[in-house]
């Protein structure tokens, strides 16, 4: 799988490049800002075009949300290219912005996650394959948010675990692998969760991420 990366911090970028190469990705470009990244994406022949771009959210010139804007642009111009945005902080707002209409191919992770080699590799892979990746902290914050009435009160502990992984963007198989459950059992849990939360059932993994996040956010 081909990967391009964009970050203005050279040390970090070099580390990230090494890490991705070691994890078996093919690095096709390094950029220190959004424009360079777009040049890489636009300029390459389709055989050299990245499957996924790993982008820092804060880059020159304004150091605010250049990464998010670049992600939007890439998704619009090349819907087949996934974009994984990295940030020092995670904000639900940004996660929702990235998920967009739930078409998939986007991810939003805390920078710290790169030290979890396997998890990070999975996330890059998933986004490159058109799936979604949402940082566990976003989910934890939404689930753990203090409310008058807990909207997840009816869920069993197991269902909560499934819900969290589902919201991070994991597939049923990945959830099963993580929780040592069969895929069939995970499917049953997912159906149960949707029924209890009053959500319309969907088998699309990207759409269900969006549905769960939207539910957690508004509840």
């Amino acid at each position, binding site marked *: 799988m081909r990967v391009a990366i964009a970050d203005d911090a050279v040390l*970090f970028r070099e580390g990230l490049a*090494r890490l991705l190469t070691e994890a078996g990705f093919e690095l096709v470009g390094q950029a220190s800002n959004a424009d360079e990244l777009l040049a890489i994406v636009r300029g390459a022949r389709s055989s050299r075009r990245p499957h996924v771009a790993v982008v820092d959210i804060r880059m020159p010139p304004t150091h*605010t949300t250049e990464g998010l804007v670049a992600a939007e642009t890439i998704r619009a111009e090349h819907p087949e290219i996934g974009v994984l945005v990295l940030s*020092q*902080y995670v904000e*639900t707002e940004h996660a929702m912005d990235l998920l967009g209409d739930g078409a998939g191919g986007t991810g939003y992770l805390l920078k710290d996650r790169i*030290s979890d080699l396997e998890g990070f590799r999975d996330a890059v892979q998933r986004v490159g394959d058109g799936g979604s990746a949402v940082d566990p902290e976003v989910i934890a914050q939404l689930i753990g948010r*203090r409310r*008058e009435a807990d909207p997840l009160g009816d869920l069993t502990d197991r269902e909560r675990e499934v819900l969290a992984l589902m919201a991070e963007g994991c597939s049923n198989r990945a959830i099963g692998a993580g929780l040592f459950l069969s895929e069939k059992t995970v499917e049953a849990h997912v159906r149960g969760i949707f029924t209890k939360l009053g959500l319309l059932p969907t088998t699309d993994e990207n759409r269900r991420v969006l549905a769960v996040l939207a539910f957690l956010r508004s509840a």
Partner: protein
Amino acid sequence: MNRPIRAIALAIPTFAMLLVIASAVLFTQDGVFGGDPVSNALILVGIACYVVIGGLIAWRLPENACGWLLLLVGGGLAAAVFSDALATYALREGFVTLASWADWANAALFFVTLAGIPLYLLVFPTGRPPSPRWRPVAIVVIAIAIVGTLVNVLAPSGDVEVENPIVVAGIAPALEALRAALTLVFVAAAMLCVASVVVRWRRAATPERLHLRWLAVVAVLAAALLIGSIAFGALGLHRIGDPLGVAFILVLTTGIPVSAGIALLRHHAHGIEVVANRSIVYGALAALITSTYAVVVAGAGAVVGRSERSNVLLAVAATVAAAIIVHPARQRAQRFADLIIYGYRASPFELVSTFSERLGSASYDDALPQMARLVADGIGADEVRVWLRTGAELRAASCWPPAAAASPPPSKQLVDDEPSELDDPAFPVRYRGMLLGAITVKMPPQEPMTPATARLLEGLASQAGFVVRNASLVRELQVSRERLVTSHDEERRRLERDLHDGAQQRLVTLSMDLRQARSRAAASGDAELSSSLETAEGELARSLAELRELARGIHPAILTQNGLGAALRSLAERSPVPVELRCVPDGRFADPVEATTYFLVSEALANVAKHADASHASVAVRRGVDRLEIEVSDDGSGGASIEGGTGLRGLADRVAAVGGRMDLRSAPGAGTMVLAEIPCV
């Protein structure tokens, strides 16, 4: 002032009043006077007005001919009326000689008295004709008065019952012809005198116009009454027409001297204008209340019918209606009266007292606009600017009307510490001798500034010194506080960015390196090294998390990235106490506004979590016309105070520094509510 002149000014009205009283007594005798008693009384009242007011003017302003002319007309009329009454009375009682002399005196007074009125119109209000070119008209009128008097003195009496005691019979036909010619010339001259009033009005500057306005009021009123009287009379409605005719005579006889009195004496006797002002206000109010009462009782009575019960109800309704309109009506009447009496919107005293009163209570940022407005409204200026001194120049700080405010505000260099370079008349504002600013005034072209207005403005400007000093001090303070807050915010933002680009970035890279080192250690089979590296990794992850929270607290990136709404939602999601976000504004605001609002809500929510023992908090931030309204409330134990050491003091200061204000409601047991307003555009 000249004693004998004053004595004359007092003697004439006194003597004339005696004649008036004597005439009144004679009028009560049968057959002395043919007219109706109301007209008789009105004529006497009119004469009294002429002589009393004429006397007052002559006494206060002996150099002004107006007073003397009024005395001439009033005294002449008094003598004429008395001599006529005396002649009639003497004739009835058989004293033919007395009657003849009285009739002679009456005829002798005719032209002199009559000439007084056009002369008065010619010289009002200055005591001189509008220009030297009008002097011949005055001379002609005076000449007619003299010659006419001589003719009447020598000509035969027109009456068959009495005879002129000193008649020169031989020249009677010549005198008769002369008198006819004189009358014609007199009418022409009188019309010229009326025209002179119009000419004077067109040439006049403000104060003179204000005087003439009085005459105009009388003329218009008299004309209206005369037309009304004639019209109603023609329609056969004598019940309405006749009283209008009486009113016409009243206005004409009393109006001229009363208007002269108000116009000429108001600068010399302050009491008069106050009395006149109050009379207008209360007269108008009385008329209004009476008519309201009449309309309600008559109008509604016609609809609902009359009974004892409904009468009571109607009376109550009328009283309520009158009570409701009395206050607004009084204000209107007062404005009307001010307009009539002063010709502009406020009297000098009102202006001075409102000035100090308003400026005393105005907030500091409002004091200068208020000042400009009060001055502009008070003297009827086209444009008023308040300038503040900054170093060696004056800078326009406020302007009325606001539309005239130039952007950028004009500034002028000071010359020798004086505001002499300004285009409009400038009134320096000083405090303890130091020039702090100036007030400039642009008057309408047709109403140039009078010396009286200039004096008034000098007074106001000197009164303004303290306020202007305070305003400039407060402005400096406000600007420096804003600067402090802005630079404080800048500093925090820079700090967060330094952390983000420096320590956080390095530590994340370090965690990556540690992880790789651990992989190698594991691969080389060094379990001990691998395990201690794992411990270090865990420690590093916790440090990173702490650093992240610290950086977020210093300045949340999302505030800069996505604005207030997103930052507040993020804040609410993280709060350990359930927070209901009732309202957050869309769009972006100036950095200090966003930062102040964010930190206010953040600190208030932190207080809720730490001190309030609350189960629920709610946040609402609404966009008003020109401000953000912020409300953070909880259902906790209450009892918080701004000085209670919970960071609220700092918040209040911060809010005040960006020009807002903060309020705390926290009764024990009733929860806490933090309210704030922050100006924004």
